[in-house]
């Protein structure tokens, strides 16, 4: 899965399972026709739906040395809808992996704080799975995950089950709850930055990783800064329009950086001064 041709020409994969996670989001498990799916958490692929088109998407799983990987995709437009219309057995293409993921080597030994908003859980779940495969390599992991409402919370059961592990702390929150009773609610109500304010962290010994909808970043970064986080210790996974994934098509620049090849995971200190970056 390296070399220039595999960067430009999709290799084929089959949908082996698609599991609805919420009204508009499903988890697609793909099996490559050939080869091993190797990537780092935070990297992304260009996923092609034949006759539909291509879109950038980060795996929601961690590479496990096999030929399968998972994507958590929200149905928002043409191509994602087309993907959602395919069931198991459906054929798709993949190019990648592209870009820089989370610096997992650098993160080892420290406390990890994952901050996910909405669909931003996808790459952070990849990172979480990666970490929890060898949890002893990290001091601790905290995932704070905010969703719009309980029904939009992805992977809740899975996360709750994982939270039985000792080193993993899970905090879930929703923006609002509708009138209907929510059985077995395990989350608080409130916005993520507010939730963050009440948690105890050691900024100097912690790496923070953020992924979420664009408006979330500025608030979370400000909150982290006020908790004493250095800009170098904050990683942000950004989204931009992308067509090629390899630094050619020029849609995704922030300042002079390209989100696809210099990112999509950036150290906050590297993009701090760039207008419009977050």
């Amino acid at each position, binding site marked *: 899965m390296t070399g220039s041709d595999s960067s430009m020409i999709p290799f084929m994969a089959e949908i082996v399972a698609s599991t609805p996670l919420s009204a508009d989001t499903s988890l697609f498990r793909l099996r490559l026709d050939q080869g091993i799916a190797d990537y780092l958490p935070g990297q992304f692929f260009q996923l092609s739906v034949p006759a539909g088109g291509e879109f950038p998407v980060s795996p929601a799983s961690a590479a496990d040395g096999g030929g399968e990987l998972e994507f958590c995709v929200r149905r928002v437009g043409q191509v994602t809808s087309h993907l959602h219309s395919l069931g198991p057995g459906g054929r798709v293409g993949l190019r990648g992996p592209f870009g820089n993921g989370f610096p997992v080597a650098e993160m080892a030994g420290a406390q990890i704080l994952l901050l996910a908003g909405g669909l931003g859980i996808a790459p952070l779940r990849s990172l979480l799975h990666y970490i929890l495969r060898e949890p002893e390599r990290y001091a601790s992991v905290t995932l704070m995950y905010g969703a719009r409402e309980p029904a939009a919370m992805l992977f809740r059961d899975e996360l709750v089950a994982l939270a039985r592990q000792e080193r993993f702390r899970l905090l879930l929150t929703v923006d609002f709850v509708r009138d209907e009773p929510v059985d077995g609610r395990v989350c608080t109500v409130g916005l993520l930055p507010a939730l963050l304010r009440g948690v105890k962290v050691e900024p100097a010994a912690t790496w923070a990783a953020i992924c979420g909808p664009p408006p979330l970043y500025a608030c979370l970064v400000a909150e982290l800064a006020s908790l004493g986080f250095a800009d170098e210790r904050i990683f942000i996974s950004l989204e931009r329009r992308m067509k090629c994934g390899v630094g050619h098509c020029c849609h995704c620049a922030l300042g*002079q950086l390209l989100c696809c090849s*210099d990112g999509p995971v950036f150290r906050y200190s590297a993009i701090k001064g760039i207008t419009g970056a977050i």
Partner: protein
Amino acid sequence: MRPFLPEERLGSLLALLGHWGEVYGPVTTGDGVTAFRPVSDPGQLRLEYRRTLIPPKRFLLPPRETILTYSPDAGYQPLDTAQPALVLFGLHPCDLQGIAYLDRVFLEGVVDTSYRRNRQALTIIGLSCEPDEFCFCGAAGADLPAGCDLFLQRTPAGFFVTAGTMKGEEICDRSAQLFTLRQPAGTTPWHHPLADAICRGCAAGETFPDNPLWDRFAERCLGCGACSACCPTCYCYDVLEQGGLDGQAAERLREWDNCLFKSHGEVAGGVNFRRSRRERLQYRFLHKYYGFGALRGVISCVGCGRCRAVCPVEIDLAALFEGEDHDRQ
């Protein structure tokens, strides 16, 4: 003493070049537009041309091209048809520099397979130029600009010939009988003040954030896209996929995109990272003078003057470098 092609032997050279592919050169079309078109006799050539409307990038990155085909059996495949060989005759130094820049984008790092295929089909013959009021490149007068197989330095009686590549040498060898030897007259390197201003400005990292020109530009920019379409180093592209009527096959196309279009920074859900025209013009400015990604720090504007010539509302981003008084009516 240097090899010299007397003017009257140009036709023989063109005929010989046919060996390396169909020869395209600058001509005036029926519309009165200067464009690279197939030429068979030197009478059609407009050797004194200033610039073509569309730069030679269209031979490398066509306005619209199929890049992949899909079929359920074979998956995605690149086009297997060979690209016919072409000789581009008479490219000015600015356009050569433009191609050299595109080569860096598409051939260094991740190689773009379609671009490589188109690039390999080209033989490039450069030609010296006479600047006009729109040009501001700093390279005119150079003996051998980068990126061409052969370069012709034009004089009233003919052309001094310099080979730039192995292929260029091969062409020289094969056409040796056409050349005489002559002592070159020293060419005076030519410098446009604007080119100097741009170099100085860029070196200082100027982005003129408070210049009132930005708002004036944003107000009247039509978003027509002509500036980028005609720029030899604008290469943004969009990718589309179209299914066949058989319900099985599909084609992936790419076409020129443009950072002045609203959709350029738009993602699903209506979020747009460059919502205003001002932001988009600034994006273009940043790309042209400061470069993105791997080409960060490389000025991509080659000074050909096309964007200044084709903008219907006379927007000229280079004017930002021209100092405070410009364009203040």
